[in-house]
């Protein structure tokens, strides 16, 4: 059975300047259709000027983050009929510069990841580049950070964070969570340096534990928990 659902989509053209506007499109919706399918339908059949970013269509690549009815979600992971609404508002993520329509510039997220050195730090650089043996971990060691490796860097948590909204210098949930992911890795040797990086005004202490980051994460990652664990590490020195 096909139902008609109205998509109220945020449009923004940088060349026009201004604040952007909402445009409504009527989309025939079948069971199983996602928000992304709806947006692609609009692009292919009604308005080819609509810009939306996507790739895998199966909640793996993390490129289709948007806000649907004011909540951060992956467009390819949200079923239209499950929303049980006649009108669906689709907007770009917050806390990122807008490129066009629903496409945001993810630079702030990646810049902050880089500032927090979110990679494996080893003292033996030569060995790290050309490992001569395997670096095994026990199950317990893996458990310490496993859930944080499920992050697909969609940036939804960063968009949902109210602290980033008011204080853009705050590192934000995803970069801090990723810093913890490496901090907790038994193969990492950058513990002290990491703690020094997150122990700043813009670091872990600015989290007000609103929890919206963890609530919106499509992969069940808990960035708010990672931030509290990092705080504990910073307090212990």
């Amino acid at each position, binding site marked *: 059975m096909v139902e008609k659902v109205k998509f109220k989509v945020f449009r923004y053209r940088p060349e026009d300047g201004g604040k952007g506007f909402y445009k409504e499109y009527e989309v025939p919706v079948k069971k199983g259709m996602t928000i992304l399918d709806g947006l692609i339908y609009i692009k292919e059949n009604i308005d080819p000027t609509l810009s939306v970013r996507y790739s895998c269509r199966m909640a793996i690549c993390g490129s289709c983050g948007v806000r649907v009815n004011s909540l951060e979600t992956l467009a390819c992971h949200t079923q239209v009929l499950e929303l049980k609404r006649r009108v669906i508002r689709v907007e770009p993520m917050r806390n990122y510069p807008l490129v066009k329509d629903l496409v945001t510039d993810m630079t702030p997220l990646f810049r902050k990841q880089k500032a927090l050195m979110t990679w494996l730090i080893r003292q033996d650089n030569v060995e790290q580049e050309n490992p001569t043996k395997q670096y095994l971990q026990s199950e317990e060691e893996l458990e310490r950070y496993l859930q944080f490796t499920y992050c697909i860097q969609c940036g939804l948590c960063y968009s949902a964070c109210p602290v980033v909204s008011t204080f853009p*210098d705050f590192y934000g949930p995803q970069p801090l969570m990723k810093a913890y992911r490496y901090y907790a890795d038994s193969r990492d040797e950058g513990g002290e340096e990491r703690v020094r990086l997150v122990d700043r*005004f813009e*670091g872990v*202490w600015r989290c007000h534990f609103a929890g919206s980051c963890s609530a919106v994460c499509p992969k069940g990652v808990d960035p708010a928990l990672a931030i509290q664990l990092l705080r504990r590490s910073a307090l212990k*020195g």
Partner: protein
Amino acid sequence: MRERDLMLLHYITGIGILVFGSIHVATIFFTYPFQDTIWETTLRFDSIPYAVLPVYRNALLAASLFGLLLCTTVHAMNGLRSIITELVGARKRWVEALLFAVGVFLLVYGTRTILIAHSLV
């Protein structure tokens, strides 16, 4: 001072406020001459200065008042630092300097009040 030391101080002074605040409220509860009505108990200030003097007279209670003053000032100024910076959206050195000065003023003025009242005995 590192941010983690400031925040540790923030947590400790928060607990301090609870402890010294409870002592303060309990002291007032047992010291004030309770009247028949809430109006008289809470808003008739004319009898209160004489009622609170014994609090200041007692060195331990005066010290706990100083503890409350210290904890409240440090906690409030550090809290304001976070709130203002987050509202403004960027760190401003002059805001931190101003808050530091206000904190020092409150501490000096409050300590002076406690000392004067204590030596009134």
